[in-house]
């Protein structure tokens, strides 16, 4: 990128930078600039960028031995007075992003001593991001390993996984999101892919414990969302109590259900939920918990191909299947990735085609049939195949004849 047009002379630029940075330290909300200034991060470079209205950073080529993902390095553009450089690691966050204070102290120690003392507490994908200097990079990797984590998750590879807090704190969790967060990391095939970026593009895995989808699994390359079958579970006694005490207004609960599944019999004080209609909106549950809870028959909905931008624009995940355990979908994840890679070799998928783009290219039906071999959940289009007729062999005809004759037998007396 070239220098901004009409770039003022360095002194002016630096002065303007100072002013803007000062401005950004005012106001009631905690300031990132105030934080930056407490560290060895090149705050001046950031300020110059703001003054020039252009990112001050260009790509640099710092390498860390055998660490092929999770390292990002920049140098200041040539128009930034005084230059500067920046290096940061994307580090595997902890499951549920719980940080025990003793461990966190170790992190701050590493950050302070080997880094520049600046931390992004959680990246937008879910990593822990630590800024550092090139000189200490190798050492920092070792230090992070010594406290049980590592660097990884950038480039054309599996990215930082993201799971909602799930059973660790949340009463709604329908499966153990954190367990599966860990299981994914442990899977050898996933693990290999975390190490070296060789995919057509990035790949993100997101897990939410329930339909609230706090992890935005809906938008992952693959997403897992806890659900239940049928109606939410109602503790009628508790519900009535809450109604009597005025805590709950049953009419409001009925009205807010987006599927019209709930009815309240005021006389009998009976709450009924039609499970076949329930859309799992969580509306009744979040209002009346624990008098209304998710149903007992727990499942996991798997969606695939969500992402931002990509080749064909952003996409919401498409339905893959409803499973009993994340395990059941593990093979699909691998098959999807393998096929995505194969299609890159064939030239169908190009570099920078996300999974969603890949599915768009080969067609959703073909993806389901040929790649993961999963029956279609439903008809995603307005057309459904509507035909009468069958080509049967003797055996099949005999089978149906027999089937019919049993019904004839059953109905004989009534015919």
């Amino acid at each position: 990128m070239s220098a901004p047009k009409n770039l003022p002379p360095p002194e002016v630029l630096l002065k303007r930078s100072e002013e803007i940075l000062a401005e950004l330290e005012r106001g009631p909300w905690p300031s990132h600039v105030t934080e930056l200034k407490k560290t060895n991060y090149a705050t001046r470079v950031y300020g110059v960028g703001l003054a020039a209205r252009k990112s001050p950073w260009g790509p640099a080529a710092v390498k860390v031995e055998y660490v092929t993902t999770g390292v990002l390095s920049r140098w200041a553009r040539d128009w930034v007075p005084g230059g500067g450089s920046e290096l940061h690691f994307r580090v595997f966050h902890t499951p549920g992003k719980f940080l025990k204070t003793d461990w966190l102290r170790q992190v701050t120690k590493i950050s302070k001593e080997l880094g520049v003392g600046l931390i992004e507490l959680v990246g937008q994908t879910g990593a822990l991001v630590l800024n550092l200097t090139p000189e200490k990079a190798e050492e920092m990797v070792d230090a992070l390993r010594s406290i049980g984590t590592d660097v990884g998750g950038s480039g054309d590879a599996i990215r930082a996984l993201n799971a909602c807090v799930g059973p660790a704190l949340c009463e709604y969790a329908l499966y153990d999101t954190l367990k599966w967060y860990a299981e994914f990391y442990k899977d050898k095939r996933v693990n290999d892919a975390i190490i070296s970026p060789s995919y057509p593009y990035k790949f993100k895995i997101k897990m939410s414990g329930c339909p609230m989808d706090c992890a935005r699994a809906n938008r992952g390359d693959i997403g897992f969302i806890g659900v239940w079958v049928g109606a939410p579970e109602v503790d009628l006694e508790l519900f009535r109590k809450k109604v009597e005490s005025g805590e709950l207004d049953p009419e409001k609960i009925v009205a807010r259900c987006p599927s019209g599944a709930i009815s309240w019999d005021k006389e009998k004080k009976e709450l009924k939920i039609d499970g076949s209609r329930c859309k799992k909106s969580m509306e009744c549950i979040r209002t009346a918990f624990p008098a209304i809870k998710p149903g007992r028959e727990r499942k996991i909905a798997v969606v695939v191909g969500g992402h931002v931008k990509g080749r064909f624009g952003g996409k919401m995940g498409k339905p893959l299947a409803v499973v009993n355990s994340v395990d059941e979908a593990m093979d699909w994840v691998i098959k999807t990735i393998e096929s995505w890679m194969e299609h890159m070799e064939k030239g169908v998928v190009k570099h920078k085609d996300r999974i969603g783009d890949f599915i768009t290219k080969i067609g959703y039906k073909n993806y389901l049939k040929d790649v993961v071999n999963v029956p279609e959940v439903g008809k995603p289009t307005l057309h459904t195949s509507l035909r009468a007729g069958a080509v049967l062999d003797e055996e099949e005809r005999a089978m149906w004849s027999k089937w019919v004759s049993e019904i004839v037998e059953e109905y004989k007396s009534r015919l």
Partner: protein
Amino acid sequence: MSEAERLKKKLPVPYTDWLPEVVKRNLGKWVDRKYHGYGVIEHISETGDRIFTVKVGTPPNFRVSTDTLRKFIDVADRLGVGGIKMTRNGNLEILTDSLDKALKIKEEVERMGFPVGGWGPTLWSINSCTAYLTCTTAVLDAPSITKVLYDYLKPYFTGEITLPAKLRINVSGCPSACGGFTTDINLVGHYGDAPTYDPDKIKLCLPKSAKAIEAGHVPEVAEVCPTRAIRVYGKPDGSVGLDIIREKCIACGRCRDVCDWIDFDESKAGVAVLVGGKASNTGRGPMPSYQVIPWVPAIPPDYVEIVAVVKKIIDVWRTNASEGERIGDWIGRVGMKKFYQLMKIPEGKWNRAVESQGEFGVRQFRI
């Protein structure tokens, strides 16, 4: 260290090792929860244990110095149960075991200058990408926009003023939208025009000789363009030329993502405003957001235009939506045309009013 050893990753497993003791003990045993004002939740376990979480807003892009972080650690040790949890949206939760302590924690962090809030019908947080802090493809700076917005919207976070429902805002410095762009309000920096390029340096992104082009090679900078707005051709002198066809370009920045010498004119850059996205299955369910305002100028450090537009969106929503209605649910009900009318937004090629149809997320299944 040997290559093999170095390649082996240390991963955060087994996962229970990473949980604070009281969390581990109550894993999957939560039976109820109570809200104590905005930001504080009491989690009630069937074992009788309780955990109180105090949710603290953090600086833009969730950036803190180790000094500040240590202060939080001190609080968590002193008044909490020795654990902090980061949310997916950059809030810092301090865990403790009594309401008393929770309120003390609230007091202390507020004294440190950090607000406590979120949950329920409030602003839950503003997610910002890193942009000018570290990013090479940034068009605008997201953290500073976020700072200014937060300054104005703080009462919505702390719950001094409540909203019809949850509000999340995402700010991204470029169309890659690392901040995400399917939440209630999304601000996304973009060129505002087709990109330009450095005619000399662009060669680094092109094959050296026209022969390669003739042989059918498409350099990545042209290949990634979703609209074929980039044409690469052999020149008579045997070198390679590049054209950007403005009429076809949608300013997505994919060319810029793969070639550092694709450039833009910062005076034309602006933010696109997308609204109505949701991940949650509440109300009308998950839905994508749509670009309703294609361009708002973004001028640091006060970004008045952006602040005014965001405030107006919030006001229009607050005054018109029903209780519990997220922006997307509300617009889904009244229609985007109505929203445009209320906002006096002119409709054009880049913000055509659409009606989203079809269900997303778990609603795609019959369960």
